[in-house]
């Protein structure tokens, strides 16, 4: 069965409400993209996945299906015979920083690149964090947005995201070190990368960030082509970062390649698990909401 089945022919959005990545990739406005992703996502979640230290009562509003029942003011129900939910304004007590891999290897594949997908995912994450009133920041190549709360900061972050292109090489260890040091207090470090570069140095720096008290979350971005290597003919594969090339019969090399990639992914997953990092493998042909939902559900457990 085709992956496009169940998709509305006019908008490209699936009937389930999940928007496919190729549709999202065509939307230039990252804020809109983030909202589309999050709207299809948060409605099913009952609790905020990001826990702050305190919350201050703000107002009542009518109960809506899906609202957590613990926020229903039962005394008011008894007095008015109507269901009201208490709304709180959470004080900023958590800072999250998004770290994006901007190396050239992230610009693959052409249709929906890993970098574009990471941008969408980052925007959605920033939107979620920011909507909770927490601070969110960004480190993507030369651009750095400090972690702050508020809609204004979110817009600045999304604008910075839009202005960065994936090219050249990426010093992963240095970037992660800078991001960790920028978080003043214990915070959340969200790293989106394919982790091809300097694997040991990268994980050493992540461990160091964890020792600083930060919670580390890894999103390993992979395309389906990298995972399954669906090519059959002879190709001259050119490395996007180094320009080096090898001539390979893809059909013959496929088994060896997929075994090596599977071993690499398993190694990353185990190293992350060993260090207590939350690890998510994101394949770019799946809707961003799916990966994000799985990640948020995992955090709630």
């Amino acid at each position, binding site marked *: 069965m085709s*992956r496009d089945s169940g998709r509305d022919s006019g908008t490209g959005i699936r009937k389930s409400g999940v928007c496919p990545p190729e549709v999202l990739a065509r939307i230039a406005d990252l804020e809109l993209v983030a909202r589309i992703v999050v709207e299809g996502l948060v409605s099913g979640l009952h609790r905020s996945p990001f826990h702050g230290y305190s919350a201050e009562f703000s107002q009542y509003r009518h109960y809506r299906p899906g609202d957590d029942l613990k926020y229903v003011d039962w005394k008011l129900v008894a007095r008015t015979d109507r269901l009201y939910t208490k709304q709180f304004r959470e004080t900023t007590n958590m800072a999250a920083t998004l770290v994006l891999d901007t190396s050239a*290897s*992230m610009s*693959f*594949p*052409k*249709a*929906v690149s*890993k970098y574009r997908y990471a941008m969408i995912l980052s925007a959605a994450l920033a939107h979620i964090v920011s909507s909770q009133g927490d601070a969110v920041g960004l480190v993507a190549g030369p651009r750095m947005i400090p972690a702050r709360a508020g809609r204004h900061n979110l817009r600045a972050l999304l604008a910075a995201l839009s202005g960065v292109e994936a090219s050249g090489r990426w010093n992963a260890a240095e970037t992660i070190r800078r991001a960790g040091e920028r978080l003043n207090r214990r915070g959340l470090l969200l790293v989106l990368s*394919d982790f*091809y570069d300097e694997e040991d140095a990268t994980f050493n720096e992540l461990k160091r960030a964890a020792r600083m008290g930060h919670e580390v979350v890894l999103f390993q971005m992979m*395309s*389906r*082509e*990298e995972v*399954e290597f*669906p*090519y*059959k*003919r*002879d*190709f*001259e*594969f*050119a*490395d*996007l*970062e*180094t320009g*080096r*090339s*090898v*001539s*390979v*019969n893809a*059909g*013959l*090399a496929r088994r*060896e*390649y997929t075994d*090596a*990639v599977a071993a*690499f992914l398993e190694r990353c997953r185990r190293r992350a698990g060993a260090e207590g990092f939350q690890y998510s493998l994101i394949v770019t*042909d799946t809707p961003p909401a799916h990966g994000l939902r799985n990640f948020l559900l995992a955090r709630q457990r």
Partner: protein
Amino acid sequence: MIWLNPAAWIGLLAIAGPILIHILVQRKAERLAFPSLRFLQQGRLASIRRHVLEDVPLLAIRAAIVVAAVAALAGPLIVTRTQRQAWNARVVRATVVDGVAPAAIQPPAFLSQTFETPAVADAIPRAVAWLENAPPARRELLIVGPLALGSVTADDLAGVPPGVGIRFERSGGLPAERSIAGGRVLALERDPSALREPQGRPEDTKGAAGSGSARAPSRAEGFGRAPGSESIVVQQQVTLKDVHTSVRETGAAAPDPFPVDVVCSTDARPIVDTAIAAVRSQRVWTPAANRRGRLVLLDSSIDPAAVADGGPVTQSWIADAIASIARDRDLHAAGAQTVAGLSDPRFSTMPWQPLLLATDGRPVAVAGASRASLVVVSGATPSGLVTPLLLRAMVNALGGPPDLRQAEVLPIPESQLRAWSRPPASVIAPPIDRVERDDRRWLWILVLALLALETWVRRANAEEKTSTYEEDARVA
């Protein structure tokens, strides 16, 4: 299945073309940007690639196109039982007509050709060649004519292939007369004033046809005069009509040389010339050019060792000539009157053969062979009767009259015609180029279908190549 042009199978070597194309094309790999090469090993894979063909289905289709085209060129012919029965049901007939053809020849032929000729022997090879080029059918050679003796011989029919049937049909009457070349007689010496141009009027002679008639020739009616010579040669032609034999003599351009060389003393030469003239006047026949004789007339002035170098007889015609001379009655009668024979004892032993004996019991003349010619040594005096008789016997033995029985007008016996006749054989393997319609059209249709399939597969591959590799990934 029969292949009409099996040599075309050499074209299968063309299969190497698609294979080479696939190998060479695959060497040109498409460049594809990829995130990381850390999981790809060039060395091993590149070496493997050189030995691996891709697009095996496309290669198989192209090879099949070549094979089908070559098979079509090879001319397949599927011989079914029905096809073979259809071929055997029809007859291709070549009719050689000597005289008047019959109105209708049964059974009717699928294809026929008539060769009208006065000489059946000449037309048979042409008829056989035409039959060889005929389409598949039972092939028959029909010879129509009076079928006189000699008009068709076993040698003429030996060249007919075994599969070709032979049939004879008599038509018309035997010819009224038949002429053959009778041969040549040695020149007659006549008075030049008596010479005139040949008139060619035949003269009939009563009696049975045969060598007897020729041996007793009729009077010569015409003569030819050789330019610059007083000698006259005569060419004889014999015509037999029923039991009547006519002989027509015509002059020849040059006199034939006397076939016997005479070795004698100078004193005896005039006598010997007279004897030769006497022999010429006897109208003896000219022998073949390779049959020569030598007569040595021994006397005291001739050394026998120098001129009589006789050896053993090794050729049959020399043996026949010696036997013929030895049977000459006139010669024996003249030899019986000779008192003394050859005194040299060498001529009484082998290899010399005595021809006639003198009254003293010694041979008067002996014969032997010398360098493929007949040698006769005579001890008789040149002026005696033995010498001209010996010369005549030698000339008759070397040549002899032609066999005029060949000129007889008789039909070939029915038993002989039945022995020569045979039915046409069934068609087993038709001639390669003679089949009207073979089965190569089916293979050409297959070639077209395969070409269409090849085009479709090639376009599908091209579309797949140009499509995004993301689609490939999803399919995978």
